[in-house]
Each structure stands twice: as C-alpha cells, then as structure tokens.
C-alpha cells in the first residue's frame, strides 16, 4: 500500500466499489443485490439529511435561540452569557407552524396543517410572482425585440434575431388551438414543429453526453481501484457480486420450482 493511501481510504474505496457494482447489477435485471444497494443508499441519504437538518438548522436556528429567549424571559439566568434581547421569541410562530405540518400524520387533526400550507403559499406567492414575471417573461421578451439592423448590429446578429422571432411565433401558433390548423396557419405550425424537433434533438444529444460522462467517471475510477494499491478492490468485488447475483438467482428459481 503506498504511503499516500490511508487504511480509511482503502475501506472507503472498497465500500464505493461494492455499492457501485451492486447498483450496476441492474443492467442484468432487477435483483435482490441491486435492491440492497438501493435501500442502503436511500436510508443513508434520508438519515444524513435528517441529522444535518437538525444540527445546522433546527437546533442552532430554532430550538437553541428559542430556549435561550424563553429562559431569559422567565428570569432563569442559568446561561453563562445573558441573551441580548427577547427578540427571538418570535420563533414560536415558525415552531407552531412546523408542528402543525406534522399533524398530517393524523387523520383526525390533519386539517390543521392547512394553516401552515396557506402561510407558505401566501408568502411564497408574494415573494415570487413579481420576480418570476420579471425574470421569465419581461426579460425573455427582450431577444425577440432586438433591432434587425443598426450601426452595431452584425449580419449574424440579424440572422439570429430573425431565427428567434420566427421560432417564437411559429411555436406559439402551434400551441394556439383556437384556430383550426389549415392553410397558412398549418404551414407556420409545422415550422413550429420543426423548431421543437431541433430543440429536442439538442436536448437528446446533451442527455447522451450527461449519462455517458457519469458512466465514464465511474468506470475510470473502477479501473483505478482495480490496481494493487487498492488490493484489487474492483476485481475481487466484481467476482463476489457476480457470485451473489448467481446465488440469489439459484435460490429464487428453486423457490419458484417448489411452489
């Protein structure tokens, strides 16, 4: 083992290789080894998220300041440093709203959670609507209103502006169902389809690139981890995982035969 690789890194590598191969067994078919890897991943992620939320948000931003505010408010000065003010008492409101959300688990009291949801919907709508309209509608209209010619406009910019303008109109007409798609309207709508096909093609090409880069990244690492530095983790675990898949297949086929 090279000095730069610690024992902890070796353990981490073996775990990473094991779980990667367990998940890749799905290429063969949905099987218990894949399911085991999937469930462990989901469980770990959920557990990590809950713990992280507790230690970085719920405790420092809610429970601890509220507890301090309450203790000072009732003159129980048991803390080393007294609280500057009682302003954190307002945290009772989000605490109550949060608790009300938990009533969704009860069929009798789940109506109480609607107050929290109403608060969320109201506040988020108020915050979002002006910004969303500005960013996604007004500012998005700008490229369609660019000048076709001018002292600083190049021929390529003119072509781009034409393409954008024609594309926006054609796609909008395709989705305009109040008029029957006949004659000139039909031709423009078909041009809209052409525009959308180009967009879908570009999206598909990018999607292929995204999926491949994930596989390439993992395969590159698996090849690296097959080296003696990592005690042939990939090779050994590959055989073990294949063996386990074969065993589970044998057991399941035997079970089916017995039934």
């Amino acid at each position, binding site marked *: 083992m090279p000095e730069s690789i610690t024992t902890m890194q070796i353990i981490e590598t073996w775990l990473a290789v094991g779980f990667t191969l367990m998940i890749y067994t799905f290429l063969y078919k949905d099987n218990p080894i894949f399911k085991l890897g999937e469930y462990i991943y989901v469980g770990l992620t959920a557990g990590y998220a809950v713990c992280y939320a507790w230690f970085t948000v719920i405790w420092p931003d809610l429970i601890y300041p509220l507890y301090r505010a309450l203790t000072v408010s009732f003159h129980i000065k048991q803390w080393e440093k007294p609280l500057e003010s009682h302003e954190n008492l307002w945290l009772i409101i989000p605490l109550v709203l949060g608790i009300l959300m938990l009533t969704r688990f009860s069929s009798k009291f789940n109506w109480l959670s609607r107050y929290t949801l109403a608060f969320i919907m109201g506040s988020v709508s108020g915050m979002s609507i002006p910004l969303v309209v500005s960013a996604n509608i007004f*500012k998005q209209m700008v490229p369609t209103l660019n000048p076709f010619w001018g002292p600083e406009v190049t021929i390529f910019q003119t072509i781009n502006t034409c393409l954008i303008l024609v594309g926006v109109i054609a796609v909008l007409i395709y989705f305009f169902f109040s008029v029957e798609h006949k004659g000139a309207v039909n031709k423009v709508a078909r041009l809209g389809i052409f525009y959308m096909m180009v967009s879908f093609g570009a999206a598909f090409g990018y999607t292929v690139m995204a999926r*491949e*880069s994930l596989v390439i990244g993992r*395969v590159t690492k698996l090849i690296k981890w097959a080296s003696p530095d990592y005690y042939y983790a990939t090779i050994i675990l590959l055989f073990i995982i294949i063996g386990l898949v074969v065993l589970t297949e044998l057991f399941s086929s035997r079970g089916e035969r017995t039934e």
Partner: protein
Amino acid sequence: MTSEPKFHIIRWVIFALVALAIIIPVIVSEKIKLPDTSSRVVKNIYDKIESLPAGSPIILSIDFDPSSDEELRPMTMAILRHVFRKKLRVIGMTIWSPQSSGLMGDIFTTAAKMENKQDGLDYVIMPFKPGGSSVILNLSQDIFFTYPKDYKDKSTKELPVLKGIRTLKDMKYAMCISAGNAVDVWIVYGKEKGKMPLGAGCTAVMATDYYPYLQSGQLVGLMGGIGAAAQYESLIGEKGIATERMKPQTVVHSLIIILIVVGNIVYFTRRRKG
C-alpha cells in the same frame, strides 16, 4: 417485427460495445489527442472572471450532490482554480441538499491545497440552509443574518474573507453549478435582487433549458456538462479530469452516432419492405 429474444441480444451487444468504447480509450488515453477548443458561452465565463480585480468577492453556489459529482466536479474544480489564481474572495454555499455541503467542503479543500489558499482568508464555505429562494432573498438583505456561522462553526463576522461585504449587491459575480433547478432560482431571485453578473454550470441534460437566458443577457455564460469543463480546463491551461474524460466520451459519441444511423437504416428498410 423484431422478436423479443433477438431484441434482448441486440441490447446486450450495445451494452458491450459501449463498455468497450469507454474502457479501451481510458486505458490508451495517452495515445488519443483532441484539439483545444472553447465555445463562446464558456469563454464568456472565463473572460468575466479574468476581468475582475483581485480581492473581488464572488459567490459560488455548489448545488449538486454525489449522484452528479462525476459530471460537475471537473467544472467546479476548474472554476475554483481559476478564481483562486485571480485572487478573488470566494463564498461557497449551497441551496440544493445537505449532501452538497460535504461535497463542497471536499472540492474547496482540494482546490485550495492546489492553489495554496486558506480557509477564512481566501474563501469561506457556508453550511446548507433549506429554503432555496428564501435563502437567496435573505442574502440580498444580510449575509451575516443568513449565515451567522460558517461550515466549521466559526462566526462569519470575524472572517477576513467577508470584510466589507454585507449583501448580495456587494458581490461582483455569482456562479451557480447545479444538477437541478438551482440555476432557475438564482436567475429569478439572485439576479433580480442582487443585480450582479451571473454565470451557470449545469449537467448536460439541462443545458438546452438555459440558452434562452444567455440571449436575454440574464446569464453571462453557460457551462453544460463535461464538454464545457474540458473547454474551461483548456482555457486556464490546466488540462485535468474533464479533458481526460472527453477522450472516451468522443469515442462513445461516435459509436452512438453510428448506432443511430444503423438503426434508422434498418427501420426505413423494414418499413419499405412492409
């Protein structure tokens, strides 16, 4: 019509071909040479960072988790190394998931070690806060209220890296590298409130969604997937993971183009035969 067993075999042949198209170029990667290119949208981000004077504060929002690490880490590393070299002050944050925090810590530490930068002095990592848009809106009012403590539980008011910074409007640039809708959130809330120039990096799947924001000037540049990361590595003169991964990527892309052409020929031939 294609029978089921035949289709099953073809599927396995495609799997095997793709596997070979990845493994062989990885093994013989030194023999494969690719030309250095960079698109305008990627270069815009590079130019924007180049134009910032040393000491300018910027935000880097790392909004992806381990499932997209392979695709987005290379571009994050390239950006970070560039901003560290330019001596910019970096505020690392995330609005995506709790898992992003650990990942961000690892990426920042690695890049900082490479460029000899110090936590608290040259950069700061903020812990994950849920709320997404609310977090950004809070940042537009008071950074220290939003993040009273950093990732290592140090008081943010005492950090030299945050000296002279109060709100999002003090930022000279912001960049969101995302595997989800965080770029949308940054465009709608961050850009609208902070008015600072905004760049975006995203998984290739999402790249086409953000081109309209380039045309409207809401984004200064866009990096989509590993290809953009390789271009950025080329721009900073530091060829790394992304450049290496573009080699198998190019081979697999060629294979897929061939498969699409063959698939279409087979389809149209069969249709003609009825």
